[in-house]
């Protein structure tokens, strides 16, 4: 897929800058708008799940859930609830026309074989080179649980992260080097936050959009060098 052309489309839509930080739903709407039509997508548990609320039928997006399904529909309600039909978060969901079921090894072959266009994940930290930390705080008494995070991070063609830019203590989650245990190395291509959208990769961190702050103000919050993405211009 072409990330660049998507970004240009986003710019053409006039969402390069907003006056205030984005809320969770606005951010989910933005991610949904950036997903190229026809994509196969896996939405992680938590905030990324909100993205499904904003996907438009004309985008023709197929959602994958790692417990063995393509063509997942919205969360089930009332009589639709069926214990045999759940998503990765173990929430009852629905199936859309054209859905398919498969066993777990096939489901992870879809990820690990590079067949998914995009996965959207939450994160504790993302590094300037796209390292991801999202599965374990490293606290000695914490019970570690990884699920499919490492497979998604290394397998999807594009890994988008959704997170608040700052912790509750005001510390940037976009960092030079992750201090939490890693999920994957150099895997994150974009970071969607309440304050800006960042493009990460070997060339460093570029800012595609800002929300309620200038690039200079953003730089004061983030401990890695930021540049404006070329398409953003001056």
């Amino acid at each position: 897929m072409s990330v660049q052309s998507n970004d240009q489309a986003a710019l053409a839509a006039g969402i390069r800058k907003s006056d205030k930080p984005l809320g969770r739903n606005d951010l989910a709407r933005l991610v949904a708008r950036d997903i190229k039509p026809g994509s196969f997508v896996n939405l992680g548990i938590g905030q990324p799940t909100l993205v499904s609320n904003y996907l438009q039928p004309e985008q023709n997006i197929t959602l994958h859930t790692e417990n063995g399904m393509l063509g997942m529909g919205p969360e089930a309600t009332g009589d639709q609830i069926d214990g045999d039909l759940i998503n990765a978060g173990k929430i009852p969901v629905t199936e859309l026309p054209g859905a398919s079921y498969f066993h777990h090894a096939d489901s992870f072959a879809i990820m690990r074989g590079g067949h998914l266009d995009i996965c959207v994940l939450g994160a504790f930290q993302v590094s300037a080179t796209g390292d991801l930390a999202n599965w374990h705080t490293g606290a000695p008494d914490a019970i570690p649980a990884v699920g499919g995070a490492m497979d998604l991070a290394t397998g999807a063609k594009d890994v988008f992260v959704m997170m608040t830019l700052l912790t509750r203590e005001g510390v940037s989650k976009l960092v030079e080097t992750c201090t939490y245990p890693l999920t994957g190395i150099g895997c994150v291509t974009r970071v969607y936050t309440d304050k800006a959208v960042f493009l990460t990769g070997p060339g460093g961190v570029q800012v595609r959009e800002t929300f309620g702050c200038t690039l200079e103000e953003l730089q004061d919050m983030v401990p890695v060098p930021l540049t404006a993405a070329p398409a953003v211009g001056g």
Partner: protein
Amino acid sequence: MLNFPENVNEAVAGIQDGSTVMIGGFGNAGQPFELIDALMDCGAKDLTVVNNNAGQGDQGLALLIKEGRVKKMICSFPRQSDSWHFDAKYHAGEIELELVPQGNLAERIRAAGAGIGGFFTPTGYGTMLAEGKETRILDGRGQVFETPIHADVALIKALKADGKGNLVYRKTARNFGPIMAAAAKHTIVQVSEIVPTGGLDPEIIVTPGIYVNSIVKVA
């Protein structure tokens, strides 16, 4: 030789102390609760259990853990809001945990059933879950060597079986069933319905009967 035990207790009667037992299911979907309850009743202990999770609430695998029958869990996601029995055993140091990325768990089980001695995968490379494992750079990517997970017994749930042991599943309750059936030396399946041989369309069979040893119908 395929058999059809009268009930779940008869089906699990041969499970020995110290066995490695694969249990199907992702959360509660596809979890063979009746077979797990029978495993509890049969008294087998010092079990190594392979499952995606480590039990939820106060039923099934969670109870097996609570009763101290499980000495080791091999799983990808033990910690959940209602995994209190595992949490307690873990914090008390009374259960061993081998934490495996979910795709590695699935592929290691698949590898066992397919006779594969091991495989390299990028999943987990450079993370603490790859510590101590052999690594290589293949096709320009760091990859980690992973080994198959074999089991003495698999307990799984399917929707229907026929007289040859062929199985079909239902929706996302399929999950680990087919690969566990192939990976275990002895596979015990609980189904909602047993149909006569020929009663399942050969084109839609998911698990061929060659992988299945015992089938028991549960209400």
